[in-house]
């Protein structure tokens, strides 16, 4: 999938949104494109656990793999973190 649709250009959706205006999340982020985490929509306990896994606001990640039921694998440097579909949909991104 090309990331052109997600670039911030005049008349187009900003880098942190999908073409239909929804916030861009890990679940709908294109593959192999650097993105910055801008928010995590989970309860405090699990949001902190994400932080401890290295997924925190400001971290740069890449979605490397799509799996069934919306699951995603994200790369943070050499690390690979598997996320289920719901969790992937809770991590907000801005494309770089």
């Amino acid at each position, binding site marked *: 999938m090309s990331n052109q649709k997600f670039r911030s250009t005049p008349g187009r959706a900003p880098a942190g949104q999908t073409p239909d205006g929804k916030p861009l999340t890990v679940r709908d982020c294109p593959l192999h494109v650097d993105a910055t985490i801008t928010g995590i929509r*989970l309860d405090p*306990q*699990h949001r*902190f*656990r*994400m*932080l*401890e*896994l*290295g*997924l*925190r606001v400001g971290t740069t990640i*890449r979605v*490397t*793999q*799509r*799996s*069934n*039921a919306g*699951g995603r*694998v994200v*790369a*943070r*440097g*050499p*690390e*690979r*973190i*598997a*996320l*289920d*579909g*719901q*969790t992937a949909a*809770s991590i907000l991104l801005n494309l770089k």
Partner: protein
Amino acid sequence: MSHSNSEPNPSMGHSHSHRRGLSVLLPERPHKGHDQTDHAGSANKAGNTTNASTQTSVSAPLHGSHHVHQRRIVFIGNPNVGKSSMFNQLLGAKSRVMNAPGTTVLLERGSYTYGDETWNLIDTPGTYSLLPLSPDEEVASQAAMGMNGQPNPDLIAAVLDVTNIARSLYFLAMILELGRPTVVALTMNDLARRAGAGVDPAELSQSLDGVPVVEVDGRTGKGTDLLMETIAQHLNGTPMPHGLKAVDTNDVDVAQWVESRADDRFEWAAQVLEHISLENRARVTLSDRLDRVLLNPVFGIIAFLAIMFLTFQATTWLAGPMQDWIDGSFRAWCEGGVTHLFTWFSPTATDTWFYGLIVNGILDGCITVLTFLPPMGIMFIMLSLLEDSGYLARAAFVMDRAMRSLHLDGRAFLPIVIGFGCNLPALAATRTLPDSRQRVLVGMLVPFSSCTARLSVYLVLAYAFFRDQAGLVVFLMYVASVLLILGVGILLRKVKFRDLHSEPFAMSLPPYQVPRLVTLLQSVLIKLWDFVKGASSIIVTMIALMWVLQGIPATANAGSFGHVENVHDSVYGVVADTVAPVFAPAGFDDWHASAALMTGFVAKEVVVGSLGQSYAVDSGDETEIQQGEGSLGAAIRHSFDESSGGHGQAAAVAFLLFTLAYTPCLATVAELRRQFGGRIALQTVGLGLITAYILAVLAFQTLRWVL
């Protein structure tokens, strides 16, 4: 969060002809032990150095004392870092499994001799943080902090995965801040080097202001000697790196401490990373390429099912001939040997009850235990291959959505599928589940998987009562098994496992690696020996009890002790007669049926043989299908028609459902007790009996109106 840390085969239609007898009680292997306080070391957190102090020690000094102070070394690390492999390399068969105080979480521990000292090594469940999200993580956290009944560690061995160095350093920061002497064991550095991201231990140690760092390969044991040497050198203290602050966890709220310092720890980790040379951090790796296939939305599931099928086939198809050899040729060889030995003493020694005790009791019990070694051994091999290769973590991810309805980890699929081959290796497979509550839940569900041993009973009754629809009846039994697993699973979730919730799935994937076969086989042999030690006592004892009951004459002309011709004339028969009326609401209140079910409690393979024995029908080499269509089937039809008031088919369905749902076999009970303790084993047996009875009664009372 879901954390990572660790089909019916109709061709197997023949049954194993086990005979039962007396056995002697073998020593039991203690399972429900607790991680006892053998000493109470502590760490002095003053200044920049962590010291091992005996301020709160209850032991006398090392030398010249009657009470030897055993240093306590706690191994802690994230899931899937190779910690347990390394621990097994260190201790091998000397490790023992114990429950953490007041929990069902298992801790592995063992004694390690270094010079003239003996250390107590503790392996903890994998955890991402000292702020736990599961009982297993809580136990690991408490072991590191010396809380909740767990003694203070004298030293912490922090096992870090180099392929996830940033997160590992964050975790290390928390450990270092506990103020205990700490040694870092670096694992997977070989994999990291291949990806161009290897870490030099000396360089890392320098970046950590002198905290000792040792590279270890858990699969081969390389580096473990140096690790223990380094531990010995630093028991009295290790440096506290700049930027970190020691804390006394007794004086702070642990959650608040972990959360408030998180940003500082990440900053500290980033600074450490700047000082060590890391290359090509974001390269596409071989693991990425493999994941494109194995985690593909469509092919990932296909690959998973294929691997499950292979595992299932291996534990049934491969194990079958070995089991047959043990039960046939090996048994005959042993019996021949014993007979030869007895005839040395007297030509008529083989006519005595003592000979019966030895052959039909002790030997029979031992052979029974041995017949389970092939499927268990193959299962352990398959599990180790899947785990050590890195695939099992992916399997959890692939099956996560499917298992979420039962609030289970994706890996729970594996034991349930294996259970359709044999429940015993399926219980062994529950070890791969990272959460102790899930292990217990799945362990309680496994007995409802319809194993191949039950198939022999299905075939005989299906062909006896539903000849033309026999195949459909057998198929429906497997459907019933799946429904039962789902139904009982939902019930257990609501009643016993209310605190088991679906957690967001976020798991660090380990890189793929080639398992080392020698190490793998060593660990399999250790596990098999553990199984033999743990299961043999209960199996041999119960087989002995069966033999005694069948050997005691209950009527005047029944024969002498050990030589009762008709089992109905023995105490066993009297017990079967006493139990039979219980099954009246299910339509099969006949002593033949209750006797068969009692025997089936020991092993399902003998239900058909027991039926044949009770009806005095010699089936010879007939298959179950032939038996169902022959004289045995006719005898069973006659009995069931009588006991059910003419509704034999309904009674047969009830009997089949009872066979499906009640305790699979003694070996399963023994393994449940060994893994989860006597209480869970008893609860599972009780659950099976109650479920079986309810199903049987409901089925008969409903179906007798139509069948």
